């Protein structure tokens, strides 16, 4: 077994790990880094519970070897509200609470991270676009109605914040508490994505 040294950024922190080739990203996040907010459901790409954001894109951490994340910039649900305070929650997290879009909560981290990438691409999605975006995030509890409402509410909230005064925008940026180095699309410095080139 040849251990592989892997460097990645997780929630704004650089980490270096010595990993075996077969270790899945989900297991490394949960088992080695203690980030158990990322959930393991099916393990076969079907349920979306293990969704994390890598280089600005929602990916399934059960269908990725951790060694493949070399150079990647990863955001897990923990990185979305790093200080853990209620005030520091991301608008999506606040909306999920406000709309009671959570029952058991197992799908929630994946659902929220998927929604985050959607809203970065499309700040004003239709309900249909939201439904398609979370088609890979299976929820056995809520019936999807409330998560869709929550995502639309967060989108409205984020648009309003973006349109506010500069002062208000600054407050919001601080309030979402995102660590500075977290995935900014178009500002990606990893070999994987850089070498993939522009499409």
């Amino acid at each position, binding site marked *: *077994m*040849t251990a*592989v040294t892997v460097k990645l950024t997780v929630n704004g922190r650089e980490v270096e790990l010595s990993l075996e*080739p*077969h270790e*899945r990203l989900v297991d490394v996040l949960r088992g080695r880094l203690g980030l158990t907010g990322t959930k393991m459901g099916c393990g*076969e*790409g*079907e349920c*979306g519970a293990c*969704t994390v954001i890598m280089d600005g*894109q*929602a*990916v*399934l951490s*059960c*269908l*990725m*070897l951790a*060694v*493949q994340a*070399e150079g990647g910039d990863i955001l897990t649900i923990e990185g979305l509200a790093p200080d853990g305070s209620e005030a520091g929650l991301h608008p999506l997290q606040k909306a999920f609470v406000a709309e009671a879009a959570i029952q058991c909560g197992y799908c929630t981290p994946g659902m929220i991270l*998927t929604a985050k990438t959607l809203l970065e691409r499309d700040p004003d999605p239709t309900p249909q676009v939201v439904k*398609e*975006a979370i*088609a*890979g*995030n299976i929820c056995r509890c809520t019936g999807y109605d409330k998560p869709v409402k929550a995502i639309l509410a967060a989108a409205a909230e984020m648009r309003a914040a973006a349109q506010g005064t500069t002062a208000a925008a600054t407050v919001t940026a601080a309030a979402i508490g995102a660590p500075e180095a977290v995935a900014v699309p178009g500002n990606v410095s990893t*070999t*994987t994505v850089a*070498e*993939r*080139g*522009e*499409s």
Partner: protein
Amino acid sequence: MRTTFRPAAYLRPGSVEEAVRILTEEPERCRLIAGGTDLLVQKPAEAEILVDVAGLGLGKIALTDGHLRVGAAVTVAELERAEPVLRHPCLTILAEAAGMLGTPGVRNRATIGGNLCNGSPAADLAVAALALGADVEITGPHGVRRMPLTDFFRDVNLTALESGEMVSVVEVPVEPLDPTTAARAAGAFFKLRRHQSSVDIATVNVATVLYLDGGVITDARVALGAVAEVPFVSEAAAAALAGHEPLDEVLRAAGAAAAAETRPISDIRASAEYRREMTAVLVRRALEEAVRRCRA
């Protein structure tokens, strides 16, 4: 005899040549990994050395004169949104197929090379690329060879790739579009799933590209998936179309001709009979849509 998926090594070569050298040295033990969305579900025990496709510079989509070149490592999500693909009425079926493949999370990692090389009879991009008359560029120990995609699929999960070879580029011929003439071309991709709104591989998938000139079909290609051991192009459907006006009975006849060429199986998704019936329906609908787009 190994029984579990536990690769002993993971390599990330920096060029196609280097990857081919590695594959050629240990063809039995090496396995390419791209998005891993097939491989990490199948977990093949014999994959001892994983060779990553990510660093090989195969992530570009380029529209040069007469050809769309799609690197094997281009992701399904990239194809779904690629401007040169979306802008062209035939190429757009690649984006349509991409948008119906798996879930957004799968599409962000899954690649076109993986979709073709996995060799699934239902592979969505394979069906779209076949209808577009694509070639694959294969790089191996003896250099680069090119092959029509129609020759690439050999059996369920079996392709024409030989020891040490990999797919580097998928190349699609692009007919120039001249709006000043009466000639028109357009395509359509249809995918039947067990529940049409759900995420599922195809029960039947169909892609077509149609050429119309002066109200007559001058040429057509109809590709079918999930109805034989490999995705394939229906010659009989094309023959039923060429030289005819796109009348209802002509499109129906093409659907029937395509259905007659299928060799479907019964499985959890559908019976063979249903697949054959639905081939006729889907082919007709795809042709109707392509005609509509030609005239739009």
